[in-house]
């Protein structure tokens, strides 16, 4: 009678869970590798969408007829999106971009109001009501060589700074 084949081993056969462990290791390895590759691809795609070139800053804008702005007067300079004002101490400029979400404010009485979500500001740009969190920033202004008043929308200034009228 043929003998039932038996496994003759000196040592016990490798346990089943170790074989499973190798499979699991392989699975994790491949999965992990694929995951890393996918993550790399996604990151590459994300970087593709990021604009690569720096954009230009807004340029200074000339204010027409600034010298004839009366004391207590206010002028909206559309190209600079700013209001140029004059008090006894001199000229100053306030940005017209609402500090809430970026709409342009309109002159409303002595102050300003933003029609988008109802923010209101006083004559100096401080928020009076509505959702705007911060005051309207003051913008840098200066006289240029030709004697024109220039507003720089890209640079801010101290809120109390005033520019005196240039003579001559």
């Amino acid at each position, binding site marked *: 009678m043929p003998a039932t084949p038996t496994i003759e081993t000196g040592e016990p056969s490798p346990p089943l869970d170790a074989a499973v462990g190798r499979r699991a290791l392989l699975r994790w390895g491949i999965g992990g590798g694929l995951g890393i590759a996918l993550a790399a691809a996604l990151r590459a795609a994300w970087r593709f969408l990021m604009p690569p070139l720096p954009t230009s800053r807004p340029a200074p804008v000339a204010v027409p*007829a600034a*010298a*004839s*702005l*009366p*004391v*207590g*007067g*206010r002028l909206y300079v559309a190209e600079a999106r700013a209001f140029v004002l*004059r008090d006894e101490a001199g000229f100053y400029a306030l940005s017209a971009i609402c500090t809430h979400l970026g709409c342009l404010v309109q*002159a409303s*009485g*002595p102050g300003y109001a933003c029609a988008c979500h109802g923010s209101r500001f006083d*004559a100096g740009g401080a928020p009076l009501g509505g959702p705007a969190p911060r005051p309207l920033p003051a913008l840098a202004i200066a006289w240029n060589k030709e004697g024109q008043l220039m507003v720089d929308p890209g640079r801010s200034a101290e809120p109390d700074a005033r520019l005196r009228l240039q003579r001559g």
Partner: protein
Amino acid sequence: MSGQQRLLASGLLLLLLTLALAGWRASQAPWRQWLRRYNAAHPEQTVPIAPRPLTPTLTGQTELCTTCHLGIEEISPSHPLDAFGCVICHGGDGLALDADRAHATLRGGRNPSDLSVVATSCGQANCHSGYDATHADQNQVERVLRSLQATYAGGIALVRFTFGAQPDRRARYAVRAVADPNPPPDWPMELATMPFSAEEDIPPTLVGQGIAVSHHPIDTRFRQGCLDGGCHLWEPATLAPYRMRSTGCAACHYLYADDGLYAGGDLTIARDEPGHGREHRLTTAIPFSQCNHCHNRGVYSLRTMEFHDRPDLPPAGSPLSEFLSRQERRLAEYYQPVGPFTLCEWELDCIDCHTSDEAMGNGHIAGKIEDSRVIECRTCHGTVWELPQTAPIVEEGERALLQARLNGRGALKVGDRVVVTTRGEKLWAVREVAPGRFVQTLKVSGETLEVPLAYGTNCPQKPDEQESRYCHACHAYDRDRGTVAAP
């Protein structure tokens, strides 16, 4: 047919009906209706019902304005449609065929020469503004903005002085602030905006513009009674017959009929709606009737701050008969019933004497009427001892030559001598045709008149009494007798 098949068939029918509806609605577009109306009015020269593109050479941008405004008059020979188009002056959206969309961005509404927008329309580069000092007379935009008809500076100063709001009659304020960087000696450098009496009088739209508050009661009263009523070029006049006019440049150069009705060829302009010019045309040949839409219409009362129309003229009085000849009408409308005047002051149109610098300003801020008014009797008639002062036309492109060509009546060429004012402005229409002989060409009718001279006559004038009131002493027209005392 089964139920479902019936549904299918009615669905198809419904689809066809809605497509028909869509087609019908498209055919009802307003611009198509205007073209159909044009074709009905001009059966001998119909046009296809399609957008009418126009690409003016100055802008290169196609415009479709003449689709609806087919038949409108060309604004002037100096502004041909092929070169200018419509959008360059009027603004608006040239590609839109929907009226609201096309007109939403018009400059100044119907009138691009309104003083609030004139700098961006008439005053565009190389047009009526932006010239240097040698051609300062072509900066018509600045001239008009600083002229008395726009600033009312003298009137404001006089009223405020009369009521004690200012210590003298020196002009300080204007309807809108103006500035002049290079004024002649003793002329104003700038005028501020007319003040209000109190802080609370300032309307919301004018807050924050630095308009002064004078705390004198006359200012707000004067503003409300007179300035807001339109005694200057910034405001339209009342919508009454014989008084209708536009604002800005168009106030003079865009002629209105007495009834203010449009009589031109553009079907979109209602012909029964008062308040439109007679035709869509600009002209420099401005008849007296246009000036009289503001001038010679009555008196204002300083006490009540009201304007009282003359009781003998419309709108207060009966309508001027259409059988009145031009001369009779001119006489009926002339000045106040009390003032004396000479024959030429009502036989000629206003612009036959009053020059461009007088009416539109010379570029500097006039503070009173004496600053603007330069013409005198002796400018054309001379004195007993002297012929009228003349100056030659020196070069092509000279101002007087351009004015003559623009008007088109009476030939003028380099070398001709024309009469000149004390400020050096040449009157192109009064020419010395032969030594000692002067002929005037009327600017509106084109008639020529021989100018009678005082030279060598026995007129008892004095050299330092040359104002018109001295001439009126003998030469005044007698209304009752219908004669002149001395020829």
